[in-house]
């Protein structure tokens, strides 16, 4: 075993996946479709969001192909408008919002807290079914001609000026939104009420803190999106005039209602990813996270401040100068907690013992790309520069850096990190490290040129553009091809590993955290006896004693066997 890895696997010739685990507990499709087990629901989610991710990715591919040439020549402009709209809707509502919470959060939060399940298992299952219904409605929309309003449903365009499937898309988002609300509700209740004895708030892993903050946003923000969609539906069908200036309504009201959710939504998307990064960086530097309290509170601070910055999406829409001052100032304030996290993670590396397995590579990628993405957010929160940069490709690049370079990298880090726990098997290390590097390179090639395009003034949502922008667009499309390969590889080798991966054992990463003290894959009830938490989070000294104790026990047993024999 190389000294540059912390992986510690059991002897492969004798190791077996434990016979009784949550996967083998019951067989048959119904036992999965009617399960209350949070781990099974997590896997149901994983399969569905992967499916929708690739649909959204295919749509992205179509966008980049069209943008190879300045003319709108690959597809009709109407079609292009539908493609980018569906890309946004699918990626945001069917992939990014549920990705980490509904898969990793669902799987891990009860275990990390020492509980046997989430507080409301039936609501958890309902949440998945709502997601599936939302997803089916989106598929229906795509098949029946798509919708071309942009994922932002701007009125009056969406209420009076398009004749595409606004209603079915709105319904899909409405239903998927309730899926999100129920997931967040479940998490908050579980974290408040189902921690095991000894598990104080400040002994919880930072992964849980991050999900707590994201859940607050899910629970409080999503209903406002729901009502905004209801209003658009009513305006579109009945023609009530709530957003129609000729009837006294105000189209800007929709903007306020929409962004009141959609800004916190971006924190819903990123906070769980930040939770993953805390866990990964800690494990692969063998150190507690630097400044645990600061990281925990910064998650909550992002959630709270995140509710008060929505109008920074509306700086040039005719809001008053004074409103601009308030929202720009608050935007600067919300940027600070993210910076705090980045520095805390950096200093977690200080005097650690660092190894570079795949999750750590993705985590490093996250740190670099999220820093860039976050800093470009400052360009946009500064109202003076926002005037020039808003509604251009600068915005597109900014949010792809934080969402794809940040969130998606964190998701992949988490999937690889907890893959042995979920499946009992290790993924193949070399090819996964290659995939991480390929993804990083592809990502930068795809999205960095878009910052330049935006500064040059290229508007977003353009099917055709002036010829001088072509070179950068070609670069971007080339990068997207590489990026696609980087995303395809994990699907292939992770599937392969289900059958041929090495047996992982309980704790292949030598990590702290309750999830690593139980078998892989876990039992349905997670714990045979409810644990008592008697040490801090990321307590590597406790882990050492644990290992020593186990070692002593084994030596003891070996001695007894020897003495008897």
């Amino acid at each position: 075993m190389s000294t540059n890895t912390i992986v510690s696997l059991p002897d492969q010739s004798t190791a077996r996946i434990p016979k009784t685990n949550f996967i083998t507990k019951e067989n048959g499709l119904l036992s999965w479709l009617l399960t209350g087990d949070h781990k099974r629901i997590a896997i149901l989610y994983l399969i569905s969001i992967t499916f929708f991710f690739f649909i959204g990715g295919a749509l992205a591919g179509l966008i980049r192909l069209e943008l190879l040439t300045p003319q709108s020549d690959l597809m009709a402009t109407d079609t292009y408008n539908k493609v980018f709209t569906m890309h946004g809707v699918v990626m945001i509502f069917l992939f990014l919002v549920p990705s980490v919470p509904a898969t990793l959060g669902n799987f891990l939060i009860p275990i990390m807290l020492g509980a046997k399940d989430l507080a409301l298992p039936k609501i958890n299952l309902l949440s998945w079914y709502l997601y599936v219904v939302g997803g089916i409605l989106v598929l229906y929309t795509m098949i029946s001609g798509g919708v071309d309003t942009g994922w932002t449903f701007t009125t009056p365009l969406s209420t009076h000026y398009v004749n595409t499937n606004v209603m079915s898309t709105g319904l899909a988002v409405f239903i998927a939104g309730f899926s999100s609300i129920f997931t967040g509700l479940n998490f908050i209740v579980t974290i408040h009420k189902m921690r095991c004895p000894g598990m104080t708030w400040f002994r919880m892993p930072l992964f849980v803190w991050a999900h707590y903050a994201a859940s607050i946003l899910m629970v409080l923000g999503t209903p406002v999106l729901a009502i905004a969609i209801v209003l658009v539906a009513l305006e579109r069908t009945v023609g009530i005039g709530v957003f129609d200036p000729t009837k006294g309504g105000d189209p800007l009201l929709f903007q306020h209602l929409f962004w009141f959710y959609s800004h916190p939504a971006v924190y819903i998307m990123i906070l769980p990813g930040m939770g993953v990064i805390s866990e990964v960086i800690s494990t692969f530097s063998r150190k507690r996270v630097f400044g645990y309290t600061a990281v925990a509170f910064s998650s909550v601070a992002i959630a709270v401040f995140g509710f008060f910055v929505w109008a920074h999406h509306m700086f040039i829409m005719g809001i008053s100068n004074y409103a601009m001052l308030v929202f720009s100032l608050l935007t600067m304030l919300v940027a600070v907690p993210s910076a705090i996290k980045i520095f805390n993670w950096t200093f977690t590396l200080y005097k650690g013992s660092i190894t570079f397995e795949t999750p750590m590579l993705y985590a490093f990628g996250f740190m670099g790309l999220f820093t860039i993405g976050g800093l470009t957010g400052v360009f946009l929160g500064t109202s003076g520069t926002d005037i020039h940069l808003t509604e251009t490709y600068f915005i597109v690049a900014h949010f792809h850096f934080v969402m794809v370079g940040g969130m998606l990298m964190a998701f992949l880090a988490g999937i690889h990190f907890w893959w042995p726990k979920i499946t009992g098997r290790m993924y193949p290390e070399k090819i996964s490290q290659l995939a991480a590097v390929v993804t990083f390179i592809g990502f930068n090639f795809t999205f960095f040129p878009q910052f330049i395009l935006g500064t040059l003034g290229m508007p977003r949502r353009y099917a055709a553009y002036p010829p001088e922008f072509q070179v950068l667009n070609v670069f971007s499309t080339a990068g997207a091809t590489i990026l696609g390969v980087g995303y395809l590889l994990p699907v292939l080798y992770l599937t392969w590993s289900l059958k041929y991966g090495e047996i992982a054992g309980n704790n292949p990463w030598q990590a702290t955290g309750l999830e690593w003290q139980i078998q892989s894959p876990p039992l349905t009830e997670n714990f045979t006896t409810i644990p008592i938490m008697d040490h801090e989070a990321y307590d590597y000294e406790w882990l050492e004693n644990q290992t020593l104790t186990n070692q002593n026990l084994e030596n003891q047993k070996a001695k007894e066997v020897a003495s008897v024999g």
Partner: protein
Amino acid sequence: MSDSTATVNGAPEAHGIPHGHEEHPAYLRHHFASVEQQADTTNFAMWLFLLTEIMFFGGLFTAYLIYRNWYYPAFVAASHQLNIFWGTANTGVLISSSFTMAMGVWCAETRRKSGLVLCLVLTFVLGLVFLGIKTIEYSEKVEKHHVPGFHYSVQAFTNPASDPETYKEYKDKPMPLDMARHTELYFFLYFAMTGMHALHMIIGIAILGFMIFRARAGAYTTGHVTFVENFGLYWHFVDIVWIFLFPLLYLISRHQ
């Protein structure tokens, strides 16, 4: 700080095995350590859900606030079209139903089965009465062409004398056409807010129906009261929303 008692469970396999312990009633889900934890948890979950409902209605209240501020005369005149008798009646009906619901919760907690069933039935009936009154009010609006988007008419505002009942009571002055057009916004908000409220009432009544059946079978009077308690919370919430809607929609400047 721990919220769970340190009861250690053995491996809880099938439900059907009789336990004999008091702390293992059949309704205790096996991911909870105790009945107290289960009750506490589901109660907290319901409060949180009601918070999301507040945010949901909040969007409509925001729209109301803004448009009432912009088009006050139109809102006043349009609100005169609402029948304050029915509105007050409905308020009384709902408050009474909240009372009967609270009594029902008490009956469940003190294991009075027949009392519980009676209270639930009363609440159910009162809920239906509310919806009945709402139907009367809505049909009045339909007759007068005050439903936005469906041949909406501003006649009653540009020419108040054409609506003798309301004119007798309020003696409104004729309103210029551009302000009269904004009454449509008021009615949209009226239908959206009371309609959303009525939808929640319908859901509540349906659950009440289910509960009456289960209560007669004794499901809630053997110690497992959380369902009734949590539903009570929901019902009280729906009542409180109405208590806000009533003055905002019916009582805009009645003395003018």
